């Protein structure tokens, strides 16, 4: 239910980070994701990063999707 958008961490200062998506920037709180590093993507919900996007899992999911899609072609 919650609008959360993947954004890139551009810089970090204490509990806050500057994040960016499509050229849009904002200062947000990373108090819920203290492990976030510059260059990470985080899910942003109401001005707080709620987790660090797992890029490896994202790739894995896309791979699964593509495999399922090709199963369709076999039939």
């Amino acid at each position, binding site marked *: 239910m*919650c*609008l959360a958008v993947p954004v890139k961490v551009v810089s970090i200062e204490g509990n806050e980070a500057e994040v960016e998506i499509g*050229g*849009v*920037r904002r200062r947000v709180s990373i108090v819920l994701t203290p492990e976030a590093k510059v260059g990470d993507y985080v899910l942003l919900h*109401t001005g707080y990063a709620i987790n660090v996007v797992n890029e490896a899992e994202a790739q894995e999911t896309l791979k699964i999707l593509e495999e399922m899609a090709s199963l369709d072609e076999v039939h």
Partner: protein
Amino acid sequence: MNDETILLAHGSGSRLSHDLIEKNFLPPLTNPLLARLDDSAVFDLSGRLAFTTDSYVVSPIFFPGGDIGKLAVCGTVNDLSMSGAAPLYLSLSFIIEEGLTIGKLKKVVGSIKAAAEEAGVNIVTGDTKVVNRGSADKLFINTSGIGIIPEGVDISGANAKLGDKIILSGTIGDHGIAVMSQREGLKFSVPVQSDCAPLNKLVSQMLEASRRIHCLRDPTRGGLATTLNEFARQSGVGIRIEEEKIPVLDAVRAACELLGFDPLYVANEGKLVAIVAPNDAGKILARMKRNKYGADAAVIGEVTDEHKGKVILKTRLGASRIVDMLSGELLPRIC
């Protein structure tokens, strides 16, 4: 001098009022009609006339890409252009909240001058009132405008015909996002400027390319979705558009994702939607693309006889859904 603030006395018709007008409004906006400073501007005009009025209450009054002054000129110039009229004269009324600095007012007047020059219109009559603090939000402006419609031009929201093509002059959502990003409580830094612009020259170029332009409107408040719904209802036709064909800037897309907006409903101040005869769509589009305000123009859909009065969107996935007009305020959401 620029930090000096506007007082109630500036609107009272006193010497202070006269000074304000003669020092700050007249010089940048001057033309023979305005310079006479009579109670009315008097002139001869013949032909079919278009007449429109609009009030501008945007907050904040300065935003990326423009300000309330530029908006006040472009908005009224565009309303005239949407009837096919060549805009000629504007009236200009200020309602100023006491406490506004003269510096800010001068900046707004400067924008009005620049916009009027670009559009080729003259401000021929005006009014200034000052109200108590709290009775207006910094500055409200009203402009009314008069223009002449060339012979043989008949543009109306009720003229759309089955098979007509729908042309959008460029990217949607720029103005609404630029303004929204400045609002307290929602601040984002967006590399997006308001698209506020006078479209009269673009329209006259379109009319040179073809007279078979049936409908024209600028999708301001309520966005593209609302304007298309208005056309569908007024003309009693169905409208079908394709999501893929609608141009949206990446930054506007991103800001909409963050705030939970649909770009279809976000305001534009320098765009138009045209409904044109299908055989002429190509040459109208080509002409538009040669104008800087039409560089990203695209055919986004067509007029049908299905679902009359409604707008149907074909999504990227190939499903079709109804796009309603905006109901109430556009509000950011968390869900």
